[in-house]
């Protein structure tokens, strides 16, 4: 009989945090939504009654016609005095002017804010999309190694619950109000070390447990540039292009709600 020795694999446990910046501005309606909205408002208008504003518009129309007739006939306008004070058309003109003034002042449709490729480190870019924070990490190595683009991770201390490690990870990156969602991780990714590394560390690899976190108001990036030489806020499409590894992307696929 031969007893084969089953090597127990041991793993490094890492906690990783997916920090979301939710969209600031609601996205535009899709094509079908716009068409449907138009059709529905038409139907609603057809089935409705006239309101006071529309009744006044009708009256204004009649009065304007009478005024034109009187002027053509050359008679004075004393009959109409008091009836044709402020027409709805004049009111609408006033409102239009005020709207253009406000738009100029507050710049509601500032395309730069919404679309502009401002700066990847600016958390206010791409206001109508959901962004996540990706970084390059050094893991405390001094040989110039940089991890590929990935979510920030940190190794757990002995006996420390995963959520606490995640909070520690957030603390190293950001200042301010970031809420981690739940005590349980949302997904796991297994990374196998290459043989020399596995022999040196005496572990077959690391298991990375992911947590979702939402960025609150009034937060600021404050990461240690030796540990995190680069960072960026990326949208879902950019994430797919930037972060390598189909298994890694597959493990975190549910962090994007599309």
């Amino acid at each position, binding site marked *: 009989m031969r007893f084969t020795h089953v090597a127990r694999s041991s793993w490094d*446990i890492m906690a990783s945090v997916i920090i979301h910046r939710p969209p600031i*501005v609601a996205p535009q309606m*899709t094509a079908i939504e716009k068409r449907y909205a138009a059709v529905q408002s038409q139907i609603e208008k057809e089935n409705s009654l006239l309101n006071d504003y529309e009744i006044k518009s009708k009256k204004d129309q009649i009065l304007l016609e009478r005024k034109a007739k009187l002027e053509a006939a050359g008679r004075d306008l004393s009959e109409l005095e008091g009836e044709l004070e402020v027409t709805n058309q004049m009111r609408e003109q006033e409102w239009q002017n005020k709207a253009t003034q406000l738009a100029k002042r507050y710049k509601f449709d500032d395309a730069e804010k919404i679309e502009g490729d401002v700066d990847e480190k600016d958390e206010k870019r791409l206001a109508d999309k959901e962004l996540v924070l990706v970084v390059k990490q050094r893991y405390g190595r001094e040989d110039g190694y940089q991890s590929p683009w990935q979510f920030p991770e940190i190794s757990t201390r002995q006996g420390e619950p995963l959520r606490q490690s995640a909070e520690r990870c957030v603390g190293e990156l950001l200042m301010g109000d970031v809420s981690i969602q739940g005590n349980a*991780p949302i997904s796991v990714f297994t990374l196998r070390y290459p043989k020399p590394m596995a022999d040196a560390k005496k572990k077959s690899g690391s298991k990375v447990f992911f947590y979702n976190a939402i960025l609150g108001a009034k937060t600021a990036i404050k990461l240690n540039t030796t540990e995190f030489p680069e960072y960026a806020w990326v949208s879902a499409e950019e994430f797919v292009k930037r972060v390598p590894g189909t298994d890694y992307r597959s493990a975190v696929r549910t962090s994007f709600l599309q």
Partner: protein
Amino acid sequence: MIPWKTATSAFGKLCLTSSNQRFIHTSPATCSVFMKRQKKIDPEIAKTREIRKRKKLEKEIREMMRHSKKPKPVDEMALDVKSAKNLSERIRPPTQLSDEVVDERALVLKEYCRSRSHLMKADEKWIRTSIFLQNKALAELKKLDPKLYEAAIQPDTGSFPQTINGPSLSAPVENYDSPDGEYTDTTRTWS
């Protein structure tokens, strides 16, 4: 021999002899239907009193029924009195919709329903995948370290109640001085 003895002893227990008074306990009557002293009233007066009480109760029941069973009007959907008076002025001329418009509307409705159903299926798939991945993660954690697993499955009471404000239609303006938001609530209540 033995059964006969127990039979006699059982019979002995049923009789209320002084030696057996331990087994049965009696007490004086503590409740009665007649508590107040009954005065003799004229039966007719008593009858009228009964009838009055009955009528009063019935009236109260009717009032309650009138308010509780009626559906309450929705102010947003009701036509106000002033507008109802000149209703004849407010009727729109009926629109004649051409066949193309009717067809186009039907097609838009179908396409919209298809798009919503597609979104709903995507949402359901997302929920299923999320649950699956989380369960997988927890299973691996359990294998790795049971203590961490125990900590992870604790309910997260600190997170709730959570308020998340949805995105606005236009970008927020910095240092905007918003006007005073005071208002008086004029909703009607029926209680």
